[in-house]
């Protein structure tokens, strides 16, 4: 029990180190190899891109809630796909093919209710907030 335990521990530790390396590695490489600063004429280098003009107004304002729900529909399906990947690995037993298929269909079916909800709520038509300036 001991050595397999140690083996797994080292394996886990190496895997974490590699992950960290992949995360911080590019930052180090870029810091060393990339040019240090950009040449500027009007020091607008860090300004938000607004087709060459200065952005007007502030971005932190109350805009329509539909953007948030549009993003939610995406997140729902991203999670959906996230779960389908390990499922494909685990459910690969040929004897229960039909049963696995039904379970996955059920899982995807429940999640696709999001589309029905969003459709009814009028998110895909970018319905406007009725109290907005001139809807």
């Amino acid at each position, binding site marked *: 029990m001991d050595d397999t335990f140690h083996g797994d521990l080292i394996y886990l530790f190496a895997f974490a180190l590699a992950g960290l390396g992949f995360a911080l590695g590019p930052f180090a490489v870029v810091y060393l*190899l*990339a*040019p*240090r600063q950009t*040449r500027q*004429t009007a020091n607008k280098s860090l300004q938000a891109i607004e087709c*060459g*003009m200065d952005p007007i107004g502030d971005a932190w304002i109350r805009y329509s809630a539909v953007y948030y729900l549009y993003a939610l529909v995406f997140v729902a399906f991203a999670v959906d796909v996230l779960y389908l990947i390990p499922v494909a690995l685990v459910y690969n037993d040929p004897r229960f093919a039909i049963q696995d298929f039904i379970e996955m269909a059920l899982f995807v079916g429940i999640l696709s209710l999001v589309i029905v909800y969003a459709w009814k709520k009028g998110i895909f038509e970018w319905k406007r907030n009725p109290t907005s300036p001139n809807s």
Partner: protein
Amino acid sequence: MEAQPDLSQLVKDCSPIVRFGLLDDWLALARANSLWPLTFGLACCAIEMMAAGASRFDLARFGAEVFRPSPRQADVMIVAGTINKKMAGAVKTLYDQMPEPKWVIAMGNCAISGGPFVFPGQYAVVEGVDKLFPVDVFIPGCPPRPEALIEGILKLEEKLTGKRRWPIVKPE
């Protein structure tokens, strides 16, 4: 004409901390073969730039057909057209927002020296984009032919890699 921008602070060394001889050559070769131009068509030269990017003259052969609208993703700014004083601020902003290493190609007489719109008492045209920031390649013509733009890009690649890998076509 507003005061000349002091280009001195522009040319200070932006080279990286660590430099490998061989790696720099490879980097330069990679950059030379994937120059992403900024879609910055101002006037007539923009149409010739589009023609250069289209099917017959095909900038894709030199890796430069990816026209990036956003300055953050562009390597080279092809100034194709007339810069006038109302536009000068926007041009400088775009130049700033391009990440280093960046280059500028002045395409057409307007970008080189104001072109046909320079006359005594002219009030609106910036006479040459090199008054705003340093320019790497000048392509004369009004508008220059797409072949001239391609030659300009090859000249820029020659500046990057130090050697010319494409044959020079001698006008017979």
